[in-house]
């Protein structure tokens, strides 16, 4: 494949995937707004009882008590939607772009803080890496900084796959070839009975996929050096992996945010 991406196309594609992720995530949160009201699982009246918050200074607690209750929180979510849409319409050199990225970064960070009791969402954590890099790039939008930001995003992607691959290698179940089986045959994770039964019956295939995932994740950083053929194999492999995760495990947001980094990988390696 000989697809070439210009710098503008690369940044445009990263922004597009990022915007889709933020829109889905924000509207999902709005659709379960009742959980943020008193009595809900994400209500501030409940979350603020977590010892992480109660052990903080009074001024800190006063500050979060102002921004984390449902009404101000949904104002911030709405602001997040507006800012992410602005990424699609603002020109790349617009100073307003800095404000949009800054707001997205701050709200994303606050989301992690607010949800601390249950654990910050992985997708949101990863989105902050991309938004942070683009924010820094928009502050000084020179060629050098843009390239550094794209390298940063590409290296963080490689690091995420490598970490996942190595931690699977450290896990005895994955080393025995049963890690994937546990996910694919457990209704808790893959809530499709036919799929559970299929992988239960096809043990060789299940083990092969188990090792394919480990090899794919551990070898992912190779894309940075191994040439275009290898890059496209990994990009297509990554898309298949994330589509499968989205359909099987219903983790659709992972797809948008991880695939958002692929244009950076493509741009870096084509240079």
């Amino acid at each position, binding site marked *: 494949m000989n697809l070439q991406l210009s710098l503008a196309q690369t940044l445009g594609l990263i922004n597009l995937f990022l915007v889709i992720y933020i829109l889905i995530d924000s509207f999902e949160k709005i659709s379960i707004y009742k*959980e943020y009201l008193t009595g809900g699982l994400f209500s501030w009246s*409940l979350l603020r009882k977590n*010892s992480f918050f109660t052990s903080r200074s009074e001024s800190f607690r006063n500050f979060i008590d102002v921004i984390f209750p449902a009404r101000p929180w949904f104002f911030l979510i709405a602001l997040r939607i507006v800012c992410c849409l602005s990424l699609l319409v603002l020109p790349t050199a617009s100073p307003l772009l800095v404000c949009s990225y800054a707001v997205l970064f701050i709200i994303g960070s606050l989301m992690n803080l607010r949800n601390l009791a249950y654990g910050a969402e992985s997708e949101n954590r990863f989105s902050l890496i991309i938004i942070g890099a683009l924010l820094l790039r928009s502050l000084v939008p020179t060629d050098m900084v843009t390239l*550094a*930001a794209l390298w940063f995003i590409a290296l963080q992607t490689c690091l995420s796959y490598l*970490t996942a691959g190595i931690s699977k290698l450290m896990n005895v179940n994955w080393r025995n070839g049963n890690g994937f089986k546990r996910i694919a045959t457990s209704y808790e994770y893959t*809530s499709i009975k036919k799929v559970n039964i299929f992988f239960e019956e096809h043990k060789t295939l299940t083990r092969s996929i188990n090792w394919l995932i480990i090899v794919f994740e551990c070898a992912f950083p190779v894309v940075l050096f191994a040439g275009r053929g290898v890059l496209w194999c990994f990009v297509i492999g990554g898309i298949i992996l994330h589509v499968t995760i989205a359909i099987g495990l219903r983790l659709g947001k992972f797809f948008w945010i991880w695939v958002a980094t692929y244009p950076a990988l493509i741009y870096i390696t084509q240079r």
Partner: protein
Amino acid sequence: MSIWEIVIILILIVWLVANVCYSLMNKRIAHYTFRIDLFRWLSAFQLFSRNIESFQLSYRDMLADQSITQWELVILNQQWRSYHAIWFPGRAIDDCAKSMMTDLVHIIRKDHSGFGRKKIKERFIYHALSHFLKRYPQNEGSLGRQFRIQDKENNEVFISDFYNE
């Protein structure tokens, strides 16, 4: 290269190196970074690498005449739908409840006495789980609710007292 370019590139390098360190020494330094890294800017993505242990949550009520109802199983797996690949807001709630159960079991296994550094009943997770169960209907005049967590083989891992919040 301008000074601002150098500053930005340095920030990116520091962030990347910090993330590499966090990924390499996650278990050792997470305890410290937990309190410092308020916004979770550091991440180690060990996607699906940990051993999966699934638990079942059920509850029962004590009625006004002090009789006790049957255990009701809480279903935390919504039926699979093709659109869930793109749109699945319910996952946040299911995942949260599962995460709370896993955390509570982790605490219990670490401290069988229940009188460790912090009584289990005083834990946020215990409180959040009982709060979560409020969404399931309770008979009027009920004296309290009790919940239990079972492992995959239906062994009881934890049973709460009757509580009435």
